[in-house]
């Protein structure tokens, strides 16, 4: 009896994609504890939503560090979250056709949101608008 370990928690997958997914959840989760909670503390405790505006984002993204921080958080959070949604889909959607459809939607969301998020974080150029404002004023 003593040798029997009561099973608690999700069983570790034996191999293949599911094992990579299992490790990804844990590694990305640990990193996101610092990235996402750091983000919340910066945006809601140190600053508040009353101070944050376009200029705030422009100043912040002047620094490559914050662009890298935000892009890493985007990448990890999006894949961690959508991979979690995939597990929920597998729990509740049984028919093969609906499951393929649901997985396709999740992968499409992953690609589309990774692209628009990356465009926002990596290609944003505030000087474009400052020139416009100066020309207009």
């Amino acid at each position, binding site marked *: 009896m003593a040798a029997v*370990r*009561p*099973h*608690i*928690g*999700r069983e*570790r997958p034996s191999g293949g994609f599911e094992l990579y997914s299992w490790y990804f959840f*844990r590694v990305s*989760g*640990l990193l*996101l*504890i610092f990235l*996402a*909670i750091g983000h*919340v*503390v910066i945006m*809601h*405790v140190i600053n*508040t*939503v*009353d101070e*944050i*505006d*376009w*200029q705030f*984002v*422009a100043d912040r993204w002047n620094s490559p560090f914050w662009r890298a921080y935000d892009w890493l958080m*985007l990448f990890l*959070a*999006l894949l961690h*979250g*959508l991979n*979690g*949604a995939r597990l*929920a889909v597998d729990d509740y959607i049984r028919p093969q056709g609906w499951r393929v459809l649901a997985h396709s939607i999740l992968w499409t*969301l992953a690609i589309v*949101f990774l692209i*628009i*998020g990356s*465009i*926002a*974080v990596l*290609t*944003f150029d505030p000087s474009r*608008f400052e020139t*416009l*404002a100066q020309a207009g004023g």
Partner: protein
Amino acid sequence: MTTETMRDVHRATTRGITAYRGYRPPPGMISWALHRITGLGVLLFLLLHIVDIFLVNYGPDTFNELLFLYRHPVFRIGEIILVAGLYYHAANGVRIILIDFWPAAYRYERQLFYGVIAVFLAGFLPTAFLMIRAMLQAGGA
């Protein structure tokens, strides 16, 4: 789970009918359900948040106009709930990792769950206090 059931059966048989207080979900079930609900909730907000930050590329006028949403009291209360979900998901995630890599963790299942609640409250209460204070100050101004 097995330990839970045995304990309940033991209580029921030793103390008679008064031991039945209805179905009490074991901590593993509550923590699992909360983990899934908070995870999906945070994901939903993340998708919205990616769309709104994409709008910085449309310039200060468009972006700042949209920010009325973030400053609306209903949205601000929603963000406090979001922070609660995020903090719980983080604390419970650490519990899951501990269970995965620490073979004796099953003996402390209940204590680990109470630990999650304690860590959650220690993080959430100060954050919620500061967010509510900022909200009231903005409302008064």
